[in-house]
């Protein structure tokens, strides 16, 4: 047993000591009143003739209206991608393909600030995260994969890798531009052409990316970006001339897609939900661990498939961890995503806020104890207080199901074997976290936790060179790194 630790957290009283607002300016964001579909290198009016609004979830104000692609629009985009693949992209020398991708990377870097602002306005995430994580990582992802284009024969020994053809890609609303980069960059590097659909609540940065793609002189049709909701996604999944479907989103929808392509030869990769265990041992650096737990569950308001949404604390340090956790939550700044001081921004949509509230009520009904931050939420917009549940049963729905919000379910354990058993006892297997100062314990845990990404003494770190993806019902296939190439090749 570790000796009882003294709580040496310095508590700041924010009633008397407040950060002055440090808002990022909106003026750099050039958002058109209306966006059409990006097909064959041009912005085209949708055949559906329909548009829908995209709003700022922090203010509920309309930002723009975007085209709602129907089956005919999807078909047009797929045809453009097919022609571009067969006539141009698959025939182009690989090094030239790479140079186009480098160009896109550079242009994102040049306009990074504008992209950050639009990402935050459209999605609700803190500007600090858009600026420091989403946008730089998106540019880096293009930069990384650009270099692979003419080196593929080194990635797969004894195989001559070939592109699949046209890739249909459907991405979520939690990291809009970053997910677009994760999908488009490896597809292009491997010689495929793309029809990409951003999520309906966060289409703007993908459409701005379309502007960059146009500006980069990428041959028309190589990347097509079309907006819409579930029906548009279904039209992509069911289109007969698509060779590959890549989907990131919920496990529920992933299963529907897996069934939908069952009768076809479409290659499929799925990056689905998670319910990651973040595990604190008594020998961990507790302050760092608490910081990691905060980052694990409140990063991007918990809208992260790999969020550390289950916390397991060894019983001997439970009291101190809980106290530090509660103290830290009290200091989190919740509110205006455009303020550079903000830690937790707006929930992405009204619908998602309702889902989170539903789960908070389930947690209460199931008998768990709730602790909420005492922060004051803005009157307008969709916000949720950082929330903890303790006394959570392993069978509780808040410990089993993905909430996708700033809600942490906390359990305790005594032995290593026990926590491995509990952590793995879920249909998901996307990620996990381990906090201990003992190296051999780190590797015991990292090798026995059944998940695709394991963070030891850190959490929620991403890099273009680092493969990401799940075990079990968290999906299959990897994005990032050398391993991310095989999703788009006949290997």
């Amino acid at each position, binding site marked *: 047993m570790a000796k009882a630790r003294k709580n040496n957290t310095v508590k700041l009283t924010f009633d008397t000591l407040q950060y002055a607002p440090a808002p990022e300016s909106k003026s750099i964001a050039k958002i058109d009143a209306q966006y059409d579909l990006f097909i064959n290198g041009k912005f085209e009016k949708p055949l559906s003739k329909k548009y829908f609004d995209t709003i700022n979830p922090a203010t509920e104000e309309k930002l723009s209206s975007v085209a709602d692609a129907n089956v005919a629009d999807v078909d047009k985009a797929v045809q453009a991608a097919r022609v571009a693949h067969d006539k141009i992209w698959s025939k182009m020398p690989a090094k030239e393909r790479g140079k186009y991708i480098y160009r896109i990377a550079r242009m994102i870097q040049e306009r990074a600030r504008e992209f950050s602002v639009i990402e935050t306005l459209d999605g609700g995430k803190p500007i600090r995260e858009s600026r420091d994580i989403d946008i730089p990582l998106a540019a*880096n992802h293009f930069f990384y994969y650009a270099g692979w284009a003419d080196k593929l024969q080194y990635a797969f020994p004894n195989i001559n890798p070939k592109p699949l053809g046209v890739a249909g890609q459907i991405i979520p609303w939690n990291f809009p531009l970053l997910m677009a980069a994760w999908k488009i960059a490896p597809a292009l590097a491997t010689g495929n052409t793309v029809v990409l659909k951003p999520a309906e609540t966060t289409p703007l940065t993908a459409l701005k990316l379309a502007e960059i793609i146009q500006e980069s002189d990428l041959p028309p049709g190589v990347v097509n970006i079309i907006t819409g909701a579930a029906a548009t996604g279904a039209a992509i999944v069911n289109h007969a001339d698509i060779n590959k479907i890549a989907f990131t989103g919920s496990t529920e929808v992933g*299963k529907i897609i897996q*069934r939908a392509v069952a009768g076809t030869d479409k290659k499929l990769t799925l990056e689905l939900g998670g319910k990651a265990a973040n595990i604190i041992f008594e020998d961990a650096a507790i302050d760092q661990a608490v910081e990691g737990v905060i980052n694990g569950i409140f990063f991007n308001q918990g809208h992260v498939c790999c969020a550390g949404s289950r916390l397991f604390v060894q019983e001997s340090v439970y009291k101190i961890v809980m106290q530090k956790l509660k103290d830290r939550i009290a200091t989190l700044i919740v509110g205006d995503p455009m303020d550079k001081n903000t830690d937790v921004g707006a929930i992405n949509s009204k619908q998602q806020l309702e889902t989170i509230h539903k789960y908070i009520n389930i947690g209460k009904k199931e008998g768990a104890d709730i602790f909420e931050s005492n922060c004051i939420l803005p009157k307008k917009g969709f916000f949720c207080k950082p929330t903890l549940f303790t006394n959570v049963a392993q069978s509780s729905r808040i410990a089993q199901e993905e909430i996708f919000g700033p809600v942490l379910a906390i359990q305790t354990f005594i032995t290593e074997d026990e926590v491995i058993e509990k952590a793995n006892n879920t249909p998901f297997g996307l990620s996990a976290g381990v906090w201990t100062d003992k190296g051999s314990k780190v590797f015991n845990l*990292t090798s026995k936790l059944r998940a*695709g990404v*394991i963070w030891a003494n850190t959490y929620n*770190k991403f890099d273009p060179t680092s*493969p990401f993806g799940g075990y079990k019902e968290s999906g299959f296939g990897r994005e990032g790194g050398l391993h991310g190439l095989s999703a788009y090749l006949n290997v």
Partner: protein
Amino acid sequence: MTRIEVLKTYKIYIGGQFPRTESGRYYSPKNKNGQSLANVCLSSRKDFRDAVVAARGAFGGWSAKSAFNRSQILYRIAEMLEGRRAQFVDELIKQSSSAKDAENEINLSIDRLIYYAGWCDKFQQVFSSVNPVASSHFNFSVPEPTGIVAIIAPQNTSLLGLVSVIAPTIAGGNTCVVLASENKPLCSVTFSEVINSSDVPGGVINVLTGKSSELIKYFADHMDVNAVVYCEKDKESQQLIKEKAALNVKRVLLYNSINWEDEEKGQSPYFIIDTQEIKTTWHPIETVGSAKAGY
């Protein structure tokens, strides 16, 4: 008086035991001359479920064995197979192979086991990576077994197809349940006896005989199976497997145009990788000092 030959009872192989099917059912596959080969177990859904329980029970131990140890065990299977080659040649001929083809098939099967025995502690090095992340972290990716693999073995061979799909699966640390060739099931049962005497822990390989038309849907929809391998061209079965697999996001591997006799195309470490997951691990690197590795 001439001695009466002792005939063999062909049973299934679950959890290291040779039970009869719990259903009490049997079928009598015939060779090309119309002679009955034997009364073979017509395995049921319950047999399959029992086999999955055995495979799940064996997974933790098998996947935790050292790669070197797994390599030796696969090599041991090959040794045992070599020792009983005459029996397999007899069975292959009984199931309509020519003497020459039978000889070829047993040779290829033994060699295939040796081939994958060698890969057990090497494929990880070929398919792993240390990832040069931009932040101050040590980051690496390694393959790990996906779990329980349900396999419908190639139907046109009795032994070679079976060996070709089992070996890469277990070489990578998975455990499996295999449905043998429906019309040529004899070698699968005899091969189970080889496995049983080769230090392969019970439950790592489970072998059922029976009808794929009856069992395929259970192979694909069992919630504790992680991957399904199917080796035939039948489109309807492929679709059925893929649809049912979606219930728990199973990995589906279709090997429908593999020539298992081909030493280039019928074997490769990519068959191992097909039932592996890539796990990526991050750990911070301390940045407190200013010393550089300058010398």
